[in-house]
């Protein structure tokens, strides 16, 4: 049966609706252990926005992992990442700008990779940012991605992190999962967009 939306909004926009296409908008509820987004070869690029993602547990790391056509539904595809960041102590006691060798993943790690580190879980704390994943459907190349994120660290530190990497598989990617290293995702939203070919 045709739905109201399908009848009313199923119109052809002749490519004039813009190239950034909303795919999904996940509002996080208290108790959500993760957010899973489906990606595929429909778009050349997937663009993801994290809006004020807040953890239930203090000092949890915010991370992600990929699923592919060859991973049997598991989020454990091998990755190689680089990680550097800028930090600013809220009390003025110092700032840093450096590569973070302990926060990258090397070789062919199936573990979650880190985006935000030791987040605070006070009401005003959280992490926001954006991510691009390129050509998720490729069966020829490894898949590249990069992230820029800004967080409120549990130690009252402002941190802007730059994470980039590639997924070490020539299988097409089918999904990405975001979660905390401990506890749940408590609130915030994660939006997925496709960038038109």
């Amino acid at each position, binding site marked *: 049966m045709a739905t109201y939306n399908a009848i009313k909004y199923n119109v*052809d926009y002749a490519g004039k609706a813009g190239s*950034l*296409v909303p795919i999904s908008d996940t509002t996080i509820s208290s108790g959500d252990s993760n957010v899973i987004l489906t990606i595929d070869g429909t778009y050349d690029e997937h663009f993801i926005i994290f809006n004020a993602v807040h953890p239930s547990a203090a000092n949890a790391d915010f991370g992600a992992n990929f699923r592919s056509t060859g991973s049997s539904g598991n989020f454990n595809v091998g990755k190689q990442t680089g990680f550097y960041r800028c930090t600013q102590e809220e009390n003025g006691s110092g700032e840093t700008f450096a590569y973070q060798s302990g926060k990258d993943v090397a070789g062919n790690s199936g573990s979650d990779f880190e985006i935000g580190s030791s987040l605070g879980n006070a009401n005003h704390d959280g992490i926001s940012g954006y991510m691009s994943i390129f050509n998720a459907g490729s069966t020829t190349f490894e898949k590249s991605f990069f992230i820029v994120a*800004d967080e*409120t660290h549990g130690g009252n530190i402002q941190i802007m992190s730059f994470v980039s990497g590639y997924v070490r598989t020539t299988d097409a990617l089918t999904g990405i999962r975001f979660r905390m290293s401990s506890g749940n995702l408590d609130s915030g939203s994660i939006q997925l967009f496709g960038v038109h070919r």
Partner: protein
Amino acid sequence: MAFYSQIAHNVLPPLMTTSSTLGRGAFELIKSITASSDSDITFADGSNGVTFDSTFKTYCFKFIDIHGSVNFRHLGFDIQVSGGSGFDEPKISSGYEANHSQTNNGTQFQAATAIDLIDSTNLQAIIYGIGNDADEAGAGELWLFLPSDTAKNMHFISQTVNHTDDDKIRHTFMGGYTNEPGAIDEIRFKMSEGNIDSGTIKMYGIR
């Protein structure tokens, strides 16, 4: 069920099928303002056709050919919560810059300590040290994440590039947040001194 677009054009409609999102580009232009020797450019909710509230989760501002009246001055922003005055919300930030001189005799890759803030109400500079020769300007973008949230810090991230007063390309990333509770519904852009002589600032929203 076949969709009209499938039959007519062999394409599937977007997956999101709500009246507020379908058929839109997700990147919606809210307002574009072109400077003309202005002391500031302000985007305030409900003023001059600007929507700056919970209608959009994320806002992005694009800076195109920003040219200041005074040499070696910085484009920056101040924010204001709903019902506030004075654009005096405190901000904390950090960032870095990559510089390369036109004469190829020097590079820097370092923390942007000249423009970071520590719980300060000062202007948050995002394009640092723009030259004011006729052909010199700066450009870039600024993201604001969930400014309508009244409980959480509002995070921001900017990326800019400019021709500096001493003839370098400068690439600057800045990130940070405001600790002020309350929904942000105004932002003001200005130079650290003098006017914004020319250039355009575009405000986009993502629902």
